[in-house]
């Protein structure tokens, strides 16, 4: 059933290329003002999903609606109200930063004066005002991303599709962009679909996450909800001063009340149902002459859920995760 409040909704959305299915039966809804992360490795179907939603590609099966408009039929109207930052920034090297933004603004129907005023305000916000009239040719990846972001925002879109908006940015720029996205959603009610490899970024920004793998939606929901569905209990960080080896992980995982154990950079992450078992676990570790520096129960993160859902199949390009997964729990779509 279509959700009246949904700004983005897909139903059984499917598209392939030359016999390979890129998006396979995708069904999801995104509410107004929500920031949703589309997570998955290269080839998961994230970019194809964005193209389908904007009516750039036609589906083989299923439907999608953005702002209540049918993507296949009303693509033009959708594109007038959305902004897209593509993965490669998609800037013309031979034009200046300002010219790149002005071209898109003019195509979107803004007057030249208004477009210039808005572009300059965005460049100032992204600390690019001093380079607005330089050709993009010599720009770094981060500078290109900032110009692309300015271009996608110049018409004040209602929905933003951001394909890897912070890849190539330095930490300061990443923080600025992240804050901007959060502000757009929080204060201006903008809806954001964020395709990203960076789980930490998604974790900071997003209300809900959709995990795609080979075109299929494996999980969709809030990280804590998904975690609750994936496993009972709590994750606990054990700081052992070094990464736990396989032998130790096997031993800890077999202790009573422990449902799983994975390596972490400082030791291990274990899953327990009842915190009452913690003293016994610590005593057992100390009994084996293992130093325990800290025991920190914490809520499940996006990383935990991602690796649990994908079974650690990260395609070699998911960043900022602990990396070992929690055993491939499988599909968790509401």
């Amino acid at each position, binding site marked *: 059933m279509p959700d009246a409040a949904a700004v983005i909704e897909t139903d059984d959305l499917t598209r392939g290329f030359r016999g390979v299915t890129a998006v396979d039966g995708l069904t999801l809804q995104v509410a107004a003002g929500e920031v949703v992360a589309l997570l998955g490795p290269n080839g998961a179907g994230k970019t194809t999903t964005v193209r389908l939603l904007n009516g*750039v590609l036609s589906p083989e099966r299923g439907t999608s609606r953005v702002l209540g408009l049918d993507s296949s039929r009303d693509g033009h109207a959708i594109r007038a109200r959305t902004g897209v930052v593509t993965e490669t920034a*998609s800037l*013309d*090297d031979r034009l200046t930063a300002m010219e790149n933004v002005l071209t*898109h603004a003019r*195509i979107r129907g803004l007057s030249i004066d208004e477009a210039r005023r808005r572009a300059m305000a965005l460049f100032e916000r992204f600390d690019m005002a001093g380079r607005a009239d330089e050709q993009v040719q010599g720009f770094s990846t981060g500078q290109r991303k900032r110009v692309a972001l300015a*271009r996608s925002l110049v018409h004040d879109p209602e929905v933003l599709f951001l394909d890897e908006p912070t890849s190539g940015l330095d930490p300061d720029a990443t923080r600025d962009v992240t804050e901007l996205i959060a502000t757009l959603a929080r204060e201006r009610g903008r809806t954001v679909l964020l395709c990203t490899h960076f789980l930490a970024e998604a974790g900071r920004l997003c209300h809900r996450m959709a995990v795609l793998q080979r075109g299929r939606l494996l999980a969709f929901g809030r990280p804590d909800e998904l975690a609750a569905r994936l496993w009972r209990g709590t994750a606990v960080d054990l700081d052992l001063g070094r990464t736990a080896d396989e032998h130790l992980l096997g031993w800890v995982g077999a202790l009573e009340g422990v449902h799983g154990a994975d390596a972490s950079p400082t030791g291990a992450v274990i899953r327990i149902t009842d915190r009452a078992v913690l003293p016994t676990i610590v005593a057992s570790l100390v009994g084996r002459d293992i130093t325990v520096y800290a025991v920190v129960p914490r809520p499940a993160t996006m990383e935990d859920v991602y690796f649990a859902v994908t079974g650690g199949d990260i395609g070699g390009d998911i960043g900022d995760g602990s990396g070992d997964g929690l055993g491939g729990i499988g599909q968790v779509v509401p």
Partner: protein
Amino acid sequence: MSRRNWPAIRAVVWKDVTAIRRSKAIVLPMVIVPALLLIVLPTVIGLAARGTNSPDISQFLSRLPHGFASPIQRLPQNQQLIVLVNGYLLAPLFLIVPLMVSSVLAADAFAGEKERRTLEGLLHLPITERDLFYAKVAAAFVPAVAVSWIGWLAFTVVADTVAWPVMHRAFLPTRLWAVVILWVAPAVAALGMGIMVRVSARAKTTQEASQLGGAVVLPLIFLAVGQSTGLLLVTMPVALAIGGVIWVIALALLSRGASRFTRDRMSATM
């Protein structure tokens, strides 16, 4: 159907033309080839005819069809070379200019946009496929015709000036040249573009498009060269007919190209 969105079309044309102007790899051939053909060549011919030993081309003229050769044969010997080359033989050769310029620009506008990965940004904009196609075609066609016409004006001035001591009159433009410039050259520009639009749909890079297009464009250039060497002499009716045929082929190619210029198709090949 929907009306054209002229501001959007103008924005795309402006973007493409601005980008082209800043690309030396595109601008240099667009300047050098017309300069050689339309300034250096008529200068050399004019200077050769002004010499005391101006070449005797009577034997060459006698082998040409009577209707074509007789008006030239009636001229003084030192004027014959100038009128034959600058008045007639250069006209078909001149068509290399619109053909080359439009092919290079169309390859940049279509395949180049894919290669630079800038096409996707355009596809996500509220511009219809048809408007985007027209804008891209205009961005190649208008400069190609402009370069041809400016080159031809320069040619006319140079050829008349250099030949003045021999001709004692401005013998250009001729009616044949007028047909070539106003009718055949735009047709040839459209043809070069039509070919490159089709080729660019398959090519992923400008180089690939140029190579694929070369297989089609080069034979046409050889045809033009063949014309200029007297294999197929151009007279007014022939020029009009050739222009008409080229227009039909070009418009058919462009029409087919437009129907295949869809977001889905382009996006699927990116």
